[in-house]
């Protein structure tokens, strides 16, 4: 259960750290084939809907939801902005909660013994099913959305950060002991910087979970946002609008995921071991 996410660097840092322009160029060259394939799928989709005569209520052709996206752009953008805020604030709270919890668990063994098993146990609860309960308690406002995002997204952050905090080199620990370092000094100077690559691996997972959390919370009860729009469109049998909102949610997830990579690059100036192996 306690496994580091893929892309977590090992302790050896012998490889040169690649520079941002080099990475971007490689990213472009890798993105091309996927972009072409996506385009081909869209064309095939358009043709299939036209040739097979499928009803627009079931599957809208790409041209229909492109038109719909343009016509409803104000509605869609307003909804996307609401959802973005829920995701971002929820994600930031998740990072604070996840990191805080991991640090406290790593620092105080009694917290480890008392709290950690409960945190793991809590993962058995299907958190999506909590959405109606949160709506019941907190109404249709923003609170239940943030709560659901945090409940879904904090765990991979805590878990990864904890693995990082505990992956301390025994020789470094001995060195710190040899100068009489305190637990807090070891935590601040060694454990937390060491755990940064693990933290980012956890944050990558968490950001996608945060999108799911926000949309599900909107399904369960909201008066705005992309999740609400999808549900509203389905009651109106407005399939193109549904697809437009769906694609917007996906794009949002993609942008946020790559935004994380940018944050990682920025921090890698000061802590080069972060990007030594990831991606």
């Amino acid at each position: 259960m306690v496994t580091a996410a893929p892309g977590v660097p090992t302790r050896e840092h012998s490889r040169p750290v690649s520079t941002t322009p080099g990475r971007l160029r490689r990213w472009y060259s890798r993105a091309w084939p996927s972009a072409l394939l996506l385009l081909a799928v869209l064309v095939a989709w358009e043709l299939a809907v036209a040739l097979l005569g499928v009803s627009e209520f079931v599957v809208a052709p790409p041209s229909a939801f492109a038109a719909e996206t343009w016509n409803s752009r104000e509605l869609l953008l307003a909804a996307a902005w609401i959802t973005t805020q829920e995701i971002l604030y929820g994600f930031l709270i998740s990072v604070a909660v996840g990191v805080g919890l991991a640090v406290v668990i790593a620092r105080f063994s009694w917290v480890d013994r008392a709290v950690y098993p409960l945190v793991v146990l809590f993962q058995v609860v299907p958190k999506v099913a909590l959405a109606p309960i949160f709506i019941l308690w907190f109404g249709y406002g923003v609170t239940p959305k943030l709560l659901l995002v945090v409940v879904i997204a904090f765990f991979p952050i805590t878990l990864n950060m904890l693995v990082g905090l505990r992956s301390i080199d025994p020789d470094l620990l001995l060195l710190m002991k040899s100068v009489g370092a305190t637990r807090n000094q070891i935590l601040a100077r060694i454990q937390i910087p060491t755990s940064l690559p693990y933290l980012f691996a956890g944050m990558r997972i968490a950001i996608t979970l945060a999108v799911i959390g926000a949309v599900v919370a909107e399904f369960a009860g909201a008066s705005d946002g992309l999740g609400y729009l999808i549900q509203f469109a389905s009651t109106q049998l407005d399939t193109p609008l549904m697809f437009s909102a769906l694609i917007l949610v996906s794009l949002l997830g993609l942008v946020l995921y790559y935004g994380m990579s940018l944050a990682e690059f920025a921090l890698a100036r000061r802590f080069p071991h972060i990007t030594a192996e990831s991606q």
Partner: protein
Amino acid sequence: MESGFISARGIGMRFGGTSTAQPVLEALDLTIAPGAFVTLLGPSGCGKSTLLKILGGLLEPTDGEVSIGGRPPSEAVDRRQIGLVPQRPALLPWKTALQNACVLRDVATGKGRSAESLRAAENALALVGLEEAAGKLPHQLSGGMAQRVSIARALAMDPEILLMDEPFGALDAITRDEMNEKLAEIWTQTGKTVVFVTHAISEAVFLSDTVHVMGADPGRLVQTLDISLPRPRTREVFDDPVFTDYTSRLRELLEPKATV
């Protein structure tokens, strides 16, 4: 200077706490004079690292006691008298060579980075011949350079006692000879008490005033050999018949059956 005096009496060590466990060290007595260069020589797994940690107050022995300058070793740790050089460099990958050389000193003094600590680290890097690599990150350093940063990190605190656990174990023979000469030079310049762990016989003879030969199962001192070669010692000493006499005696002590 008298505080560099390390004395160990009746040291016994078992891991796991159970009295049935095979002891790693048993009834071991050791005295180290201030300013001496002393080597612990023994086969792999005989307890050299364990003994080194016990001597530095980093590990509590099951039996016996250690004193440094007549006080418990924990006080030596608090008064930052102990400079540790572990078997692997264990540098912080996000810090430059210079910053790495500051780390132990900064923690030991409990203050932030100061001009004084930077100067101490710079001097220490110069002492190991690495001033031009001060701005490099650990992944840009060769194995020998990283090991020298590790030594500089200990020297920057200006400790009275240097505990070195096979610091050159991972180096090739030529770099190792260079590092040995460098270390002998530093020891002559700084006059520190050095406890050096190795299983390389010629390295032990080249560097030491005294070689303690250890045996395994349980770890104990087999014999103590004083090396009375003149100093300063350079590479030429390897061909000295007195040197080869010491190395063959030590080889016999380490492999008593293989007397050809």
